[in-house]
């Protein structure tokens, strides 16, 4: 009796294992960033279309801000852009656009065409700062608190749902704390 049931149990155990494996593999792109609760990486980058101007992470201290990595070569950035535009209209927080691995004329044309929601646009031409941020897909969005700590990261296309459920409540709690 035992020897008949045992293979069956083993079979179902294997099926369960595979199902769980498949479920997890869907979330593979959702790798937790080791940067959460860490200080924002240092950078010193030129401002887009403003020759001679540069900006560092230090000058952004004291207010919550969003860092949105994008490129004119990235179709998903184009898809999420209306959400960023909509967020900018709320004037809820400062938004930094990180134009990475891109060419300046393309970036400027892209913003002219689809709207410019960024309070400032920085140019990470060779993508080095994007590596310091652990960016591996575009777009990626980071929320930084007034002390310069990364509190939230969204990988891939930003949706209004994420803005309402993840970003705005965090910004509000930062403001009530200060």
């Amino acid at each position, binding site marked *: 009796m035992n020897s008949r049931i045992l293979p069956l149990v083993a079979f179902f155990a294997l099926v369960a294992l595979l199902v769980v494996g498949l479920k997890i593999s869907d979330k593979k792109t959702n*790798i*937790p960033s080791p940067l959460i609760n860490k200080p924002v990486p240092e950078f010193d980058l030129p401002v887009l279309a403003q020759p001679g101007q540069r900006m560092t992470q230090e000058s952004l201290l004291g207010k919550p801000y969003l860092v949105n990595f994008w490129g004119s070569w990235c179709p998903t950035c184009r898809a999420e852009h209306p959400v960023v535009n909509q967020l900018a209209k709320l004037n809820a927080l400062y938004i930094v656009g990180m134009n990475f*691995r891109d060419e300046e004329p393309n970036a400027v044309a892209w913003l002219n065409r689809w709207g410019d929601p960024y309070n400032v646009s920085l140019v990470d031409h060779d993508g080095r700062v994007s*590596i*310091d*941020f652990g960016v*591996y897909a575009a777009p990626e969005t980071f929320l930084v608190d007034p002390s310069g700590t990364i509190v939230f990261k969204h990988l891939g296309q930003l949706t209004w749902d994420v803005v309402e459920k993840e970003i705005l409540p965090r910004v509000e709690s930062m403001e009530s704390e200060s």
Partner: protein
Amino acid sequence: MKLKSIVTAFLAIAVSLSVMAQQEPLVFENQAQQDRFDKLTKELRCLVCQNQNLADSDAQLAHDLRREVHELLLSGRNDDEIKQFLVDRYGDFVLYRPPVQTNTYLLWIAPLILLLIGAWILRASIGKRSEMLANQDQTDTTD
């Protein structure tokens, strides 16, 4: 006509290969460095194409990370420091060989547990069989 298109295809491949080679002129000071680079990039995961390592992937990110590994190597960092640099940014997931730590104990000891279970089953079935044979021998002699 057919020959011509085959020749064209070969030429296209040859040209694209030389372009690929030019894209990444990573120069090393010596063979030992080159070997370390090759070994490291094989152990690191390209996060865009998750089932490829950095050495094999042609994604832009893999290209950038190879450049980063190359620079760290030339600046005299050791292999662990280079891996830590990437783990700090991308997490343990970037390593193909997961570190032994609390959330990976099961992963590391599971093969041993499975081996023990296998040994136990093997022992049980051998025991059963030899018992059966012994019984058979007995019945044979009594008959």
